[in-house]
């Protein structure tokens, strides 16, 4: 039992830093780059991915002994697609603004490598508890990386961080200087450059520590 507990904790912590999907494994680049123009979009994306990841990991883990090898991938895809559709409907109903902004990137969670990779590498081999911990860790790690990227990009592009629910309110506002009005940061260029520099920094930190 004690051994079991450590592996639950381990698989949760692994996703946060050591095996962080974005920063260390370079998985799921497409949403990472596309939705980080604003913090709210990034958080919405993160929440959707966490939801889908938890559900698919649990389902796959529950049926892991019934899976036939060559139909495995098809089964994973089916499970993920079903939960993504539910997440998409939910967002359309309760967060219409965000749903319009994220557009096709919500359905594209289906082909997000993180989810299918976790189903294959973790959930189809481990019990429910470990799979759940793994999903939470990976999901939070993904959301964390997205949040950092989105904060940098939104602040540098618009000089402020704005949330919109029924009405919009500003979280942080920087002084009105040209440095904080780099429109390029909101464009694809900004996404690639920021993530590239961020990965470089992470690499620098980890090599120093080792």
């Amino acid at each position, binding site marked *: 039992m004690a051994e079991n507990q450590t592996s639950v904790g381990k698989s949760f912590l692994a996703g946060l830093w050591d095996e962080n999907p974005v920063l260390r494994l370079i998985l799921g680049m497409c949403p990472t780059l596309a939705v980080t*123009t604003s913090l709210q979009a990034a958080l919405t994306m993160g929440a959707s991915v966490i939801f889908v990841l938890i559900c698919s990991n649990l389902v796959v883990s529950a*049926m892991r002994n*019934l*899976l*036939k090898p060559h*139909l495995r991938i*098809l*089964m994973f895809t*089916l*499970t993920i697609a*079903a939960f993504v*559709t*539910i997440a998409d*409907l*939910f967002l*359309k*109903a*309760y967060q*219409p603004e965000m749903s*319009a902004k994220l557009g096709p990137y919500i359905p594209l969670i289906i082909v997000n490598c993180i989810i299918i990779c976790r189903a294959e590498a973790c959930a189809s081999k481990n019990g429910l508890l470990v799979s759940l911990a793994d999903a939470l860790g990976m999901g939070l790690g993904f959301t964390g990386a997205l949040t950092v990227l989105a904060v940098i990009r939104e602040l540098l*592009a*618009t000089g402020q961080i704005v949330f919109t629910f029924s009405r919009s309110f500003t979280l942080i506002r920087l002084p009105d200087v040209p440095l904080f*009005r780099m*429109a390029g940061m*909101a*464009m694809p260029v900004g996404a690639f450059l920021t993530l590239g520099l961020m990965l470089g920094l992470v690499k620098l930190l980890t090599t120093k520590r080792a």
Partner: protein
Amino acid sequence: MSKLRFFWEQSWLLLVSSLIFGVLLAMADAALAPRIKRNETEKFTRLAGGMLPEAVRFEPVEPKIAVTASNGKTVEVEVYRGLDEQGRTAGWAFACEGGGFSDKIKLVVGVDGRFEKLAGFGVLSSNETPGFGDKITIPGGFFQKQFVGAPADKLTLVKAGRPEQIDAEIVAITGATVTSQAVVDILNTYVLAIRSALKEQGLLN
């Protein structure tokens, strides 16, 4: 027979779970669909109602009006008639779209009751360049203001001029001429076609 059994053994999980997921999706859709539909109409009426403050409710005009868009395709447009408290026509509103700088621009356009003056436009969705083209989305910004009260007729885009003067000349956003031209083109295409169609139906005099 053994082949059938083999097939069943291999795929029963897939078939059963397809069924379960199908039911799950149907339930989620049934629970959320009315809300999604309401969200969409709410967004339209909020934008249209902001432009036509006297209108208290919007009724669709039957039948839908066919408009030939700039790329040669025919689009069916649902035009809404805004009615005031006494049931008189307070204005018209419709959603329309066209190609912008980087992606499609979708607008809601409001026109006054006699279809002579524009009541303005609002942006349903756009993906224009941040800092330049996306200035069309600022409600009450200098670009949107130029359309409030402008004649519901052919508009032209000029690169320099006086934006505070409300007329058929629209001053482009600096650095976003393509986006500005796209908005003017969308309005020209739809407003003229819908005006003549409404006249034909006898809804305008």
